[in-house]
């Protein structure tokens, strides 16, 4: 029998602490949509997505009402388009992005991920066509998200891809300059990318995935923050234990909703991604958790240790709560999507260097960070290379989602509203890395990749 305390705790989490399911993401394989004729390939893609995801949004809404747990987003991830489009006789992959946009519009999801290429060891011709089409694809669509994996621990870092992505990010920012470079908010450069990530903008349906699957991303920074505040002044053992237990409960909700959705739609349940995903809503902040642990401002000395403790405790609780934990599964530390991070930057406590350090102990990387519009493509590439190195050496996912906001300087703001939020433009180093990033080729895989 449930206790009154347990019942009230659950209700409080949902009603007062912003507990929600951040996303249910349907992964769809498009490998059988390949066709030499690009029109035919695109028709197959449209038909398959609209057929499989026809009831995704409605099912999500039904489950949301039935269980009383908000499901913020319903989304789709697809096979990397560079693979699907490879056999078509066309140089224009942007039309594939438009098809994805139309299909996602038809089924009512707010984002579709998979305008992607995996180039950690080198480019195919199709990979190159896709990547060079990213700026136009993101400028001319609303819902499509793009990602490029430039490095793995096993392959090393494809520096040609890193170099190219610096230019692609710049071009994307310029093509969407009238909207503060929002195209860049839909573009992620990865190292060690997971193939079952339900979170945008980096979601795609990996090549080892089944025909169709439901993956779930949970949320809950507000719940964890309140739990941490309740154990103020206790030692680290109690702090870690409290976070662990809270993460367990949050993840159980994800497991429940994921399984219910998969069962109703009639596709397999994939994974729960246990990442703590902040939103611009007051209180729903990862920075807020770190500050509740006893830091005056997120970004000050001690922040890396606090984040390491948080991330580890979340994983321990989450791993006990779900049989299938996957995706990114760590704390997200975006700037624009987290009010506490924005305040920490404004207060001068949080810098790009500290953010880079934090990515050593959490899941994603340099996320939703606006940098000056005159930042060179080479500097962006160098920042990507640094992140990729952290991921490759530490056998973990890292990523970069930077917005070189055209015409903006340090102290200006980019404003997106909604989940993407707003962010101050933060400084990058003024010294050049041009000669380094232009050397060409691939940084070899590290010695710790030789595990066989």
């Amino acid at each position, binding site marked *: 029998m449930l206790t009154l305390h347990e*019942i009230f705790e659950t209700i409080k989490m949902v009603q007062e602490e912003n507990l929600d399911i951040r996303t249910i993401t349907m992964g769809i394989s498009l490998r059988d949509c390949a066709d030499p004729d690009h029109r035919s390939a695109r028709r197959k893609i449209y038909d398959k997505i609209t057929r499989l995801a026809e009831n995704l949004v409605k099912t999500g809404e039904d489950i949301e009402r039935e269980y009383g747990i908000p499901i913020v987003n319903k989304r789709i991830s697809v096979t990397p388009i560079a693979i699907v489009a490879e056999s078509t006789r066309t140089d224009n992959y942007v039309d594939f992005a438009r098809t994805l946009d139309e299909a996602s519009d038809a089924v009512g999801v707010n984002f579709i991920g998979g305008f992607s290429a995996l180039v950690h060891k080198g480019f195919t011709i199709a990979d190159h066509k896709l990547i060079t089409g990213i700026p136009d694809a993101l400028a001319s669509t609303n819902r499509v998200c793009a990602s490029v994996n430039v490095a793995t621990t096993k392959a090393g870092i494809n520096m040609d891809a890193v170099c190219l992505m610096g230019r692609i990010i710049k071009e994307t920012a310029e093509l969407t300059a009238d909207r503060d470079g929002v195209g860049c908010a839909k573009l992620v450069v990865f190292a060690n990318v997971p193939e079952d990530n339900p979170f945008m903008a980096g979601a795609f349906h990996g090549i080892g995935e089944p025909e169709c699957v439901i993956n779930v991303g949970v949320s809950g920074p507000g719940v964890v923050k309140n739990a941490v505040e309740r154990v103020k002044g206790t030692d680290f053992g109690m702090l870690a234990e409290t976070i662990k237990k809270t993460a367990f409960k949050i993840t*159980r909700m994800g497991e429940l909703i994921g399984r219910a959705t998969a069962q109703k739609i009639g596709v397999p349940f994939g994974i729960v991604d246990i990442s703590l995903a902040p939103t611009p809503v007051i209180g729903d902040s990862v920075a807020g958790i770190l500050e509740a642990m006893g830091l005056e401002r997120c970004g000050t000395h001690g922040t890396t240790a606090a984040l390491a403790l948080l991330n580890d405790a979340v994983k321990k609780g989450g791993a006990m709560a779900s049989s299938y934990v996957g995706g990114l599964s760590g704390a997200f530390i975006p700037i624009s999507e987290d009010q506490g991070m924005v305040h920490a930057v404004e207060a001068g406590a949080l810098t790009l260097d500290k953010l880079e350090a934090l990515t050593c102990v959490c899941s994603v990387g340099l996320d939703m960070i606006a940098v000056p519009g005159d930042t060179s493509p080479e500097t962006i590439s160098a920042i990507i290379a640094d992140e990729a190195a952290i991921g490759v050496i530490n056998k973990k996912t890292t990523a970069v989602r930077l917005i070189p906001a055209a015409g903006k300087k340090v102290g200006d703001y980019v404003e997106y509203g909604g989940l993407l939020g707003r962010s101050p433009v933060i400084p990058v180093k003024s010294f050049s890395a041009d000669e380094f990033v232009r050397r060409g080729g691939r940084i070899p895989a590290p010695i710790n990749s030789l595990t066989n």
Partner: protein
Amino acid sequence: MVMVADISDTTIDMVALKEKLGDKGAKLGVRIDAQHEDAFKYMHRI
């Protein structure tokens, strides 16, 4: 006040029930919530 109710033999679905209880609560000057038992069970029991 907490009540555990079995609605398996009723014709009303969870969504409609929540709305009706919400309206009734507003008239009585209290907040009435209904939540699926599974949400509590899943969160607090393995």
